[in-house]
């Protein structure tokens, strides 16, 4: 356990951090939008959207990864479009890993945000409107701050999930050391060879410590916000 990490492990850690941050942060606006739409609007197909958001949770990760490959691979309809139009390549790229992790985390994120959003007393928003705040301003100054606990919780859930995501990632972008090999891929490799347990556990611990730090940071933020609401 106390052996120094190999360069490959270091790069897996770096990559995992990058992927988890990207997944959590890029997922944030999408998750918020989905949560807002699901919580606030009634429209035909709402139930479907609700279901779709949950899909990545229900499907085995391998299936999700395979579907991602079908859609976002270079030959997939979306992937081809993205590459042709924006020059964005997701397959076999760390961005693809972030996409996979982000999608796997989305249900968690949306659920947390929606719960917070639905708990908000809408009369505060009404009050803000009478003070002259337009809908977007109300959203920015009242709704989002009040749902901060949910936003933080959702983001940390997505971040933690991204740190642990393996099945969809490896199926979609594979495991290219330094490019797409995240901590879980590295861990998995270790578990597949006799005697790899110690190295696997060591990397697991590192992932846990990272997640823990993120968790503590979010709790501190959340507490600060909460203390404010409760009157210092």
């Amino acid at each position: 356990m106390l052996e120094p990490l190999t360069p490959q492990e270091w790069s897996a850690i770096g990559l995992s951090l990058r992927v988890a941050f990207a997944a959590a942060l890029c997922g944030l606006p999408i998750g918020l939008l989905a949560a807002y739409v699901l919580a606030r609007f009634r429209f035909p197909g709402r139930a479907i959207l609700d279901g779709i958001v949950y899909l990545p949770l229900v499907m085995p990760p391998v299936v999700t990864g395979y579907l991602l490959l079908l859609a976002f691979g270079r030959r997939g309809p979306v992937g081809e479009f993205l590459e042709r139009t924006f020059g964005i390549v997701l397959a076999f790229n760390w961005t693809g890993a972030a996409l996979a992790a982000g999608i796997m985390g989305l249900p968690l994120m949306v659920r947390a945000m929606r719960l917070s959003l639905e708990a908000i007393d809408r009369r505060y928003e009404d009050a803000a409107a009478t003070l002259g705040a337009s809908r977007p301003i109300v959203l920015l100054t009242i709704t989002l701050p009040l749902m901060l606990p949910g936003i933080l919780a959702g983001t940390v859930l997505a971040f933690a999930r991204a740190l642990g995501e393996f099945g969809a990632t490896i199926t979609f972008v594979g495991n290219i050391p330094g490019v797409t090999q995240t901590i879980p891929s590295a861990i998995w490799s270790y578990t597949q060879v006799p005697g790899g347990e110690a190295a696997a556990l060591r990397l697991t611990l590192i992932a846990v410590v990272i997640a823990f730090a993120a968790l503590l940071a979010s709790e501190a933020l959340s507490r600060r916000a909460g203390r404010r609401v409760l009157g210092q």
Partner: protein
Amino acid sequence: DDVVVFAAASLKNALDTAAATYRETTGRTVLVSYAGTATLAKQIEQQAPADIFIAADTAWMDYVADRSLIVPDTRHTLLGNRIVLIAPAASDATIAIAPGMDLAALLGDGLLAMANTEAVPAGRYGKAALQSLGAWDSVAGHIVEADNVRTALAFVARGEAPLGIVYATDAAAEPAVRVIGVFPEDSHPPVRYPVAMIAASTNPDARAFYDFLLSDAARPAFETEGFTVIDAGS
């Protein structure tokens, strides 16, 4: 109780057919738990209720043998397989698989899809073959590894990777890929699926199924899927 077989996942189609044949002839049901060989080995180490173990490589069979978890004289090599170099069906890439082949040139800036070269047997065989053919160093930085050989196959089938190394059995069943060449058997340790009975097994029916697997009656099931049946004792 039904006989429980722990078998490497890549054997699913073949073994399901074999088990069905066995049930038709004997009326007895066999349950097969498919998983990665490593997982199966560790489960057996934890006293999993398995009667028979079929591994995808010898290393994990050695692992359980070292821990006296199998009945030693029941260890046999059941099946063999080959590894092949594949390309998408539409590809016109050709290369002769031989020492000194310029695989890197054929790849261009594409990636070579393989199963994990440290952990997954198919990947390990591929790596050994490339090494013995002197192509490893030139392609080492251009490999995309998958957690199993099926994903590597999918990478090629989907056209994400121009080349891949998979089992002959997988390549044969996938119309979206074309086999460019078969790696010589001597370029890598032979692909072998060892079978053994579990020491802790108390199921009186286990032996019968074990014998059936090694018998000619099971042969068609494996050969249809493209496996080489290794004659008992060889």
